[in-house]
């Protein structure tokens, strides 16, 4: 944490936890009789309870979206550049809620949690969670906080899918749906990448069919490989070249399989540090949730029909260099919304950062988000029921 907290930072935040005892029926057919969600909030809920924003996280995200946990905290929350006073998601005007999704490994009930029936970690017995299951659990969290209708539900990537699902599952419970760098379903290529990542984890000798907690080991190599592969797909070729080029780490070739190039060193570092903070079973679950998301499939593969029920206004944003969730995928969402005559605004932001762009403070992107959210905040102020 910097010595003096900048005026546009939410400062020190404390995660909260709630134990839900209402059973949650899941898409897979199983029921979670009880579960916990960990969440953080920033800003103040107004009297009319009309200024709440839900932040949905992507694959490896969690509830810690902004601010610092303590004075020695080195890094701020994952979307700190976007959430705070006078930032696009302005905490002077909005009450922002961010949670760790079910199945996560940062406090919400997931594979590392104790299964109350066996008193052992769930591990591979944890049910496969879908985007819709998340939305149902998030609705419970909204109810707990006294939020009848979100001013906006916002997410990037897998988070954008949750925002879209919100608009379809609870049409009257959100006024705006903001889906950034997202897609109406994964492409075959995307599913293929996810499968390679999962295979890397599941074939690690330390995986033990997901029961690695019992052996007090973790499938480090597999998780690391999965993350390295992920990282390659999140960056664009240009961004990678600009950042690393073919630069050599020691200024010479070593004629060995150790690290020669900077990019190798970077990927290994990213992979290794991921192992320290993320659970392999959660990674498997999250990638499955991604693969399964396909709301149009229940409507004869007509996305417009799937979205017809939505009442929210939509903001869809994509990035030109994102090939993992390309602009074309966002345009599919936009076309479906246009066909359904929904209120939608779409921007395709020029950016070199690939899929990661949705986390970057790209000026035009943030200006657009800020302008849009200002109208949302004004609208929230007008509601005084």
């Amino acid at each position, binding site marked *: 944490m910097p010595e003096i907290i900048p005026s546009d930072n939410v400062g020190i935040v404390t995660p909260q936890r709630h134990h839900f005892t209402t059973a949650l029926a899941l898409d897979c057919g199983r029921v979670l009789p009880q579960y916990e969600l960990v969440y953080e909030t920033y800003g103040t809920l107004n009297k009319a309870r009309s200024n709440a924003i839900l932040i949905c996280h992507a694959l490896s995200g969690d509830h810690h979206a902004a601010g610092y946990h303590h004075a020695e905290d080195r890094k701020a929350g994952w979307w700190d550049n976007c959430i705070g006073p006078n930032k696009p998601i302005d905490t002077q005007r909005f009450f922002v809620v961010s949670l760790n999704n079910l199945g996560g490994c940062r406090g919400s009930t997931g594979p590392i949690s104790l299964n109350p029936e066996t008193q052992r970690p769930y591990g591979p017995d944890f049910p496969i969670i879908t985007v819709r299951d998340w939305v149902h659990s998030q609705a419970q969290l909204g109810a707990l906080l006294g939020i009848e209708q979100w001013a906006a539900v916002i997410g990037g990537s897998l988070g954008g899918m949750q925002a879209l699902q919100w608009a379809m599952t609870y049409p009257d419970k959100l006024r705006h749906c903001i889906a950034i760098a997202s897609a109406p379903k994964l492409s075959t290529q995307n599913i293929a990448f996810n499968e390679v990542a999962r295979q890397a984890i599941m074939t690690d000798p330390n995986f033990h069919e997901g029961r690695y907690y019992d052996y007090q080991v973790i499938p480090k190599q597999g998780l690391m490989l999965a993350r390295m592969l992920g990282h390659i797909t999140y960056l664009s070729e240009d961004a990678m070249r600009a950042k690393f080029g073919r630069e050599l780490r020691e200024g010479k070739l070593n004629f060995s399989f150790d690290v020669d190039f900077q990019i190798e060193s970077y990927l290994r570092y990213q992979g290794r540090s991921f192992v320290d903070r993320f659970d392999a079973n959660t990674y498997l679950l999250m990638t499955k949730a991604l693969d399964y998301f396909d709301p149009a499939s229940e409507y004869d593969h007509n996305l417009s029909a799937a979205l017809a029920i939505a009442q929210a*206004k939509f903001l869809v944003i994509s990035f030109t260099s994102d090939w993992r969730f390309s602009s074309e995928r966002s*345009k599919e969402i*936009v*076309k479906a919304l*246009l*066909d359904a*005559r929904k*209120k*939608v*605004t*779409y*921007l*395709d*932001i*020029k950016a070199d950062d690939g899929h990661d762009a949705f986390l970057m403070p790209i000026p*035009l992107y943030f*200006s*657009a988000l800020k*302008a*849009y959210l*200002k*109208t949302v905040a004004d609208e929230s102020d007008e509601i005084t029921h």
Partner: protein
Amino acid sequence: MKLRTDLALLSDWIKPHSHVLDLGCGDGTLLAHLRDTRSVSGYGVDIDENKLIRCIEAGIYVIHSDLNKGLSQFSDKSFDNVILTQTLQALKRPDLLLLEMMRVGEEAIVTFPNFGHWACRFDIFFRGQMPLSRALPNEWYRTENIHLCTLKDFEQLCQTLNINIMQRAIVDTGHRSTALMRLLPNLMGEIAIYRLRLMPKVNA
């Protein structure tokens, strides 16, 4: 705020509560005007991000897109009206976009600066130079207008494309339409405004 000449005029041609697509919508002035005065719904389309942000600020729904790439994100006959103001002459293939407009809308409204206006002819004929006027303010090397046309050219194109001209208004940049303009539109008109409809297909 005073609405630009051609925009004020074409607004009268749009029925209340219509669903409208405004191509090259800029800062959304026309759509905001139509929304506020005629309860019109719809979207703007533009390529300039900064203009899109102005639209967002004005509460206008906009789609970021390059008109030179067509209107593939819009379905057939999904709009009552498709509007293209002062943009036709800046397109790579105006004819292709016109056809796209007729595909997605029941009707289209197009406005453009008339290159047949006497001042343009005067500049070319006597000065031997590309015209500069209120309607065409930039020099040839930095103008966005790459496909300038006269009323006659445009009307010929419509005929070729099987497009019916339902209505035409010829004005100067000050919103005026004089008797002389009505008498000699191609010579006296600075800005042309057309209401278009695709001709019904006749089965032989």
